[in-house]
Every structure is written in structure tokens, then in C-alpha cells.
């Protein structure tokens, strides 16, 4: 644990799990936007990371003047490890943990959650980290649980999963204990560990706790787990009983669902970026009356200024802004361009984003371009300034199989570029209009297609690029929608209101 910055008292404390200021991406930019946009409040950052070596060595963002405090903790770093020493441990405390397991495994109702276990001092004084890691009682406990629940699975995998699930709890508690008196309200940008940290602090101090969820954390972890990337040992299919090796996966899912529920039960308000996300939160246990949507906003001035650089007419250029990775389904995009090029031979397709994250996938994409003979149409441009790219584009597209609320669509709108996207995350709300008053009435700023549907995508490209009337209508809708609902000023004002309300309630 290291205090990076300490220049005084802060109003709002933001726990960041693997994001700001060491990682680029949607959540990090959102945090930066929020802090810079609200100079009347002072902010503190609590950074939770896995291991120092997983992150950039220096902050990737310049700290604004109203960021007064920052502490960081890397949970799996060796210097965070308690000194190894054998000890006995107390069986009573492990009975308490057993109750907790029941809660995680079964209904996860609020009132059945053991009261002692909500308090920080249980983890600090009763079953501390060293007791859990090194005590004999803990060993009996872990091996008994294994015998009870899944005696057939690889014990090595089981053991390390149990450890990896538990270790962060004590790290979070340690951190919570350290920042207990920092900030007047807590604002967590996700559930997961930072949500758990916020819930602990809120429970111990009664401080207000705001949750803004970008993706749905629990769901994302589930996808992680199920995509079999955990490298757990598996027996040959023939020798495996069906439920056998899912137990470890189930443990993880239960854990993340559990801390998700703990977070939802303490947070008020529970915010999301778009209405589909809100529905999902409610499905995962958030109270509907506490849930609200506050969408992200973009800097319309900067991007609006690029409108004057646009050539007359519709450029025959389709731009996909995103990394070349499987989740963005670039291959479907390439196939759709093949079909489009049959009708518009001089169509150009630009892929703007780094291609070094999934090198094998990028290679496959290049092979596909060769096979389909669209070498002259498709260009991989790497990282580019969107203010240069957007004015030259006729259409923006996303073919992803999963998205949250993609800011690039809004940025494209602000620069006057309609969008063709698959029906994921908030894309439909952005292109066809959302629940806000008058939004849907504005019309369509592009086309929504099914995931991986080449035919729909290509006909949308052809339609918009060849039918200028349709294109200009879509551009008009795009500009109007972003200016009315998705500007940075609206976004900032929304949060200013949220903070003002809460500070009023706690009498400041």
C-alpha cells in the first residue's frame, strides 16, 4: 500500500479497480472527465490493482488540481504478503465464515447476511489474513469444504481458487480501514472489489455511497470464467462427471454475485449508462427504485468543429473505431465489406485501433482479407486521432458482439457521421433513441443489425452510402441527438445534481 498523493481533505472518494490512472479505457476517461468537470469538489482516488507489473509504471493521466488524494494497493504483489508463520487459529471464527459461505451459495438475501461479517473489525481482528492463509484450523476448514462439496476435483486448482477468492477480501479490508475517514461520500465506478470496499466503508461509517456501473461487472466476470480461460485442469471428457469441474467456476460466480449484491444493498443511488444496463442491474439484485440512468457525454465543441472539414457529398468510407480483437468481430466487418464492394467497388473500409492485443486474431483477419480479395478496400490504420478520421468518413460502424455504452458512436454523431451497429449494449438506444423524452421521436441516426449478420450490415452500408437523402436525414438525427442528450455538459450537470442532493442530505 502506498500513498501517492495527499494534499488535504477530499469531498468524494473514488475507488478504482484496475482503471484510472494506470489503464486507458472507457471507465478511466469517465473518471478523468468527472473530476475535471467538477472543479468545485475535491476528489480522492483509491486504486486497487492485481500486481504492479500488470500496469503502466507511471499514471497515464495528468492529475487535475482538484484531485487531492490517492492511495494504491496491489493485492497480489509479494510485498503485500503476510510473513509466513505456522499458527493454530480458532475454530469458532471459521464457523462464522461457514455461515458466510452459505449466504454466498444460497439465497443471498440481505437479512440473512451474518451481521458480524459486515464489519471491518471481523476481518481485521478475528480472522485476519495470516490466520486464513497459514493457520491449521484454516487448512482443516478448506480441506473439509473440499471433501464436502467437490471431493473429486483437482485439489491444487481448488486450493488456489479458494485463496485467490479470499486474499482480496483482506486487502480490501486493509484499504477500507486506511481510507475510512477520507472523503464525505464514496462514488464507486463498478461493483466487484471496489464496490465491496465502498460497501464496507458505507456500512462502518454510514457515509453515502453512489454506484455508477459502466459494464455489468458480475456478468463480465461470468463471461471471463465461462470462456474457459482459467486454465484449470480438466479430465478427459469420458472420465468426467458433468458437474465435476464446474464447481470452481460456480465458486467464482457465487462470489462475484455475492459481493455484487452486497454492493447493491449499500449503494444509493445505483446509476447506469443506459436502460438495458439498468434492467440487468435490477435482475442481479439492485432495488429498482434506486436505479437511474445517467448517460455519458462527449465534447461536442471539439468534434462539432470538424464538421466544416467535411467534403461535400458522402465519402465512400466506412470507419470502424476499435481494437482488432475477437469481441469486436472484425471478421464479420470484413465479410460485409466484401458484399458491399460488389455493389460499390470503390468503397473504403478503415479499421482504426491497435492490432497488437490479439496477434493471432489480427493475423486471421489479414488472411481473410486476402481470401476475400478486398485488399484494395480495407485498411488497418492503427491508432489515429478521431478528429482527423471522422470528417473523412461516410459511415461509422461497430460489429461487436458485446459493448457497454460505446462513446465512439456519440463522438461520430458529434462529428456528423451516422452509425451502423450490431444490437449490443446501448447501441440501439443511441441510434434509434432511448427512453428520454423526445429522443425516439428524433428518428434514426443509422441502422441496427443483428450480431454477425453480414447481409443486414452490408445492405445498411449500401443503403446509406448510395441514398444521399437517407444519409443526410440520419446525420441530422445524429447531430440533434448528441446535442440534446449526450453532451459533456449534460453529463457533468447530472452528476453535479447527484452530488448536490447528497451533500444537502448529509447537511453540508
Amino acid at each position: 500500500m502506498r500513498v501517492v498523493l495527499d494534499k488535504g481533505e477530499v469531498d468524494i472518494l473514488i475507488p478504482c479497480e484496475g482503471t484510472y490512472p494506470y489503464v486507458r479505457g472507457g471507465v478511466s476517461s469517465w473518471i478523468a472527465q468527472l473530476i475535471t468537470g467538477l472543479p468545485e469538489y475535491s476528489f480522492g482516488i483509491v486504486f486497487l490493482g492485481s500486481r504492479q507489473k500488470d500496469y503502466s509504471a507511471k499514471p497515464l493521466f495528468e492529475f487535475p488540481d482538484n484531485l487531492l488524494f490517492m492511495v494504491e494497493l496491489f493485492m497480489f504483489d509479494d510485498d503485500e504478503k503476510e510473513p509466513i508463520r505456522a499458527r493454530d487459529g480458532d475454530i469458532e471464527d471459521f464457523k462464522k465464515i461457514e455461515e458466510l459461505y452459505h449466504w454466498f451459495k444460497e439465497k443471498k438475501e440481505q437479512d440473512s447476511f451474518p451481521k458480524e461479517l459486515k464489519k471491518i473489525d471481523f476481518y481485521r481482528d478475528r480472522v485476519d489474513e495470516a490466520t486464513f492463509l497459514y493457520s491449521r484450523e484454516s487448512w482443516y476448514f478448506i480441506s473439509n469444504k473440499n471433501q464436502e462439496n467437490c471431493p473429486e476435483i483437482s485439489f491444487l486448482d481448488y486450493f488456489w481458487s479458494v485463496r485467490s477468492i479470499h486474499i482480496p477480501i483482506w486487502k480490501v479490508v486493509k484499504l477500507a480501514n486506511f481510507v475510512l475517514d477520507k472523503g464525505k461520500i464514496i462514488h464507486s465506478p463498478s461493483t466487484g472489489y471496489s464496490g465491496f470496499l465502498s460497501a464496507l466503508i458505507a456500512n462502518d461509517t454510514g457515509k453515502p455511497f453512489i454506484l455508477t456501473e459502466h459494464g455489468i461487472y458480475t456478468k463480465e466476470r461470468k463471461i471471463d470464467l465461462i470462456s474457459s480461460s482459467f486454465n484449470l485442469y480438466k479430465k478427459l471428457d469420458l472420465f468426467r462427471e458433468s458437474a465435476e469441474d464446474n464447481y470452481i467456476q460456480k465458486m467464482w460466480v457465487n462470489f462475484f454475485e455475492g459481493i455484487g449484491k452486497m454492493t447493491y444493498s449499500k449503494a444509493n443511488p445505483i446509476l447506469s449508462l443506459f436502460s438495458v444496463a439498468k434492467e440487468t442491474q435490477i435482475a442481479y439484485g439492485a432495488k429498482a427504485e434506486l436505479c437511474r440512468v445517467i448517460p455519458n457525454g462527449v465534447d461536442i465543441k471539439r468534434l462539432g468543429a470538424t464538421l466544416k472539414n467535411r467534403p461535400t457529398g458522402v465519402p465512400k468510407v466506412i470507419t470502424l473505431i476499435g481494437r482488432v480483437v475477437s469481441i469486436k468481430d472484425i471478421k464479420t466487418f470484413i465479410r460485409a465489406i466484401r458484399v458491399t464492394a460488389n455493389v460499390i467497388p470503390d468503397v473504403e473500409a478503415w479499421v482504426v485501433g491497435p492490432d497488437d492485443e490479439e496477434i493471432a486474431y489480427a493475423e486471421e483477419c489479414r488472411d481473410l482479407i486476402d481470401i476475400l480479395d478486398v485488399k484494395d478496400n480495407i485498411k488497418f490504420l492503427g491508432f489515429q486521432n478521431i478528429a482527423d478520421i471522422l470528417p473523412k468518413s461516410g459511415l461509422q460502424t461497430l460489429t461487436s458482439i458485446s459493448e457497454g455504452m460505446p462513446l465512439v458512436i456519440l463522438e461520430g454523431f458529434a462529428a456528423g457521421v451516422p452509425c451502423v451497429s450490431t444490437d449490443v449494449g446501448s447501441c440501439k438506444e443511441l441510434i434509434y433513441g432511448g427512453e428520454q423524452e423526445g429522443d425516439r421521436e428524433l428518428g434514426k441516426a443509422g441502422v441496427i443489425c443483428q450480431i454477425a449478420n453480414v447481409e443486414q450490415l452490408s445492405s445498411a452500408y449500401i443503403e446509406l452510402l448510395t441514398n444521399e437523402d437517407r444519409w443526410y436525414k440520419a446525420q441530422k438525427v445524429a447531430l440533434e441527438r448528441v446535442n440534446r442528450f449526450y453532451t459533456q455538459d449534460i453529463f457533468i450537470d447530472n452528476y453535479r445534481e447527484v452530488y448536490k442532493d447528497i451533500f444537502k442530505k448529509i447537511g453540508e
Partner: protein
Amino acid sequence: MAGIGFELKQILKEKSLTSVLKTFGYSAILSSGPWVISMVIILGIGLSNIYLFHTVDSQNVMLKASVTYVSALAISSVYTGFFQLPFTRFIADRMYEKRYYLVLPNFIGMLIVTIVIAFLLSFILAIFIFNTQSNLFILLYITLFTVLSCVWMANILAASLKLYKHVIIFYLLGYIGIFICSIFLREYAIVGLLISFIIGNSIIFILLFLGIIYYYPSVHKGNSNFIRFDIFKGNFGKFYWKLAWSGVLYNIAIWIDKVIFWFTPVVGYVVIDRLHASMVYDFPIFLAYLSIIPGMAIFFFRLEVDFAQAYADFYRAINHHGSLGQIKQHKQRMIDAVKRSIQETLFVQGLFNIFLFLSAKTLFELLLLPKLYLPLFYVDVIGVQLQLGFMSILAYLYYLDRQKEALIYTLLFVFINAILTWISIQMGPYFYGYGYSVTLLILFVASIATLNRILQELDYETFMLQ
């Protein structure tokens, strides 16, 4: 999707593969085997001389030569005790990594260090101890000491490379050489005997060395040096200080009761210059060491066959994703193997002891030993049996890499043996030998308890304390 989430997969993957203890095996106590052989054979030479040549003069020469030889044996084994265990452990680690080609160059490097220090040490010792002897005598002593030091190092390496059969044959050849030379060089009295010892031990050393070269050649693309000092440079991890000191202490401990007897006025007397011996104490105990051979053979067989297999299975069950049930089953097999090895060792040893007890009188008559020594011999036989038990437990401790416990036990061995031996001398002739035997009784019982605790908690410690 937002960039949240930890590198859990990566961490989990690394943990599963590397953090479990490395398996290694090395037979540490094996050095005692040849040591016992030497003891027995030197006794044989002494006795046969007594048989063949019934003159007081020749007996006197023989005794002087034997005591000189024993002093060189004892001091060189204490000195090389410092290198023996760290070196075998170093070799075992390299073998585990399958870098066999590092064995020979490092052995040569180790020999160079051993020889240089042995020379300096024995030079000082010889001048200090033998203040009335000829320069030739001193030169021979230095040579003998240095050759013996080399034999210990070659022997421990050959044993840990599992060249057991060769080791035994080479020792026999060496001691046959000593015996033959001693007959031919009889007219040169003590100098002739010293030369015989040097020749015999040189034979052993050369044969062992050739064996090592033959089985572990150094030609490999990973090695371009003929001589390497990896163990001292710490190229592959730190020097094992605890092993080094426990090796020294163990060797001090097995000699300290004898030394105390030698230098206690009533029971010890001067043999040659500053070297002493103890008429009462020495013969019975060296004779009793004879009884250790069958038990030791059984023990090493069990260690190699049963325990090593169970130990390997235990770690394989962990590393190859066995269930907890399988892991515990292999742990139980390990415990059973330990139990069986100690039971059988002590049982065989016990049977042999009964035979010795029954035939002791006849044996003593045959060897022309005074019956006065009989009670002491009985006590020593029991002590030797217990020492075998203690040695076995120590071997397990080394095998399980419990260096700290091994160091503590060897340290205790030195102190308890010294104190109880001194007390036994104070208590009078009837108690001679009890110091040594009671020491080993205490250590054997205590170390069994320690080993039991370690084995019971092996799974706990393997998983939790890492």
C-alpha cells in the same frame, strides 16, 4: 466492455504450476556407510596383526599407526562434513534439472577446494600434533589426510549418484590393497603402514573418480569448462549453510565421546606425541560398529524403494491435479513407508544384536579381548542400534528438506553426547558407554516425535506455508 477486472487467470495459472515444492532426493547419511567399513577393516588389520605377529613391539607399532589413521579419518570427516551435504544437495538439484553435464566439472572444482584447504589444515595439524616425528612422517600424514578428504568427497558423490555397488567394491579393493601393502612394508614399521593407508585410499579415490567420469561425462553444449565453482559462486542459488553446519556437527558428535575418553587422564593415555587413545573405550565401541551393517542395508533399501517412491507419488498427486483424497492417500503411504523402514531396520538390528549378545563371549575369546570389556560392549551395541535409528530419522529430515530441524538435532547430538559422556566418566567404570547410548536414546525418541509431526503436517505445510 470496461477495462475492469484482475489478472486472476494469469495469477492462478502461475500459482498452479510453480509454487509447489520441488521434488529432490539425496542420500545424505550414506557417507556413514563407508566410514563404518573403514572402522571395521582397520579393526581387522589391527586384530590380524595381533594374531599373526605376537610381539609387543609390532602391536605397539600397529596401535600407533591405527591411532594416527583414526585421527586422520576423524578430523578429515569433520572437515569435509562441511562440504558433503551442500555438495550432494547441489548435485541433486542439478540432476533434478537434468543438467547431468555439470556434475563432473563441479566435482573437480570441489576437489580443488577440498585439497587446498585439506593441505593447509593438515599441515598445521601435523606440526602441532606430531612434535617428535620425522619430516617424512609429517609429510605422509599430510598426504594421507588430503587423500582421505578426497575419498570422502568422491564417496558421497558416488553414493548420491547411486553407484552403490561400485562404492562397496572399490572400498574392498582399497582395503585389500592396504592389507597387502602393510605385509610387504612391515619392516618400515609405522612409516610403512602409513604408506599402505595412502596407497589403499588412493586406489579407492582413483576408482571412484573414474566411475564418476565414466557415468557423468561433462561433454555438453551447455558447458565449456573443465573446472567449475558454481556452488561457491552461487550460480544456482545460495550455498546451503545449514546443511554444511549440520554435516560438521554430525561428524563432531560421533567422535566427541571418544575424544573425551582419550583425553581424560584415568581412561585415556598417550599413544604417539599428542594423540591419545582409550584402551577401555575404543575397542568395544569400534567392534560394536560392526553390528550396524545389516540394519543400515535394510534401511537404505527401504528408503530408496518405498519411501522415495511414496514421496514422489505424493508430490505428483499434488502437481498433476489429484484430488485431496488421492493426496492424503499418498501421504499415508509415505508415513507407512517411514514406519516400516524404521520398524524393519530396528528389528533386523535387534535380531543381530541378540546374536551378538549370545556369542559375545566366544567372540571376545576368539579376538583375544579381555572379558572386562563385555558389559561396555553390550551397552555400545544398544547405542549403535539407536544411532542407526537416529541416523535414519536424520536421513528423512534431509530428504524432506528440513534443514533447520536437522541442524538443531546434530547440534544437540554434540552437546548431549559431550555432557553425558563426561558425566558417565565421573560416575565410574560401570557407566562407561552409557553416555553415548543414553544420548542416542534421547535423540532417537525426540527425533521420531519431530518426524511424526512433520509428516502429519506435510500437506498443511506444503499448501499453506508457501
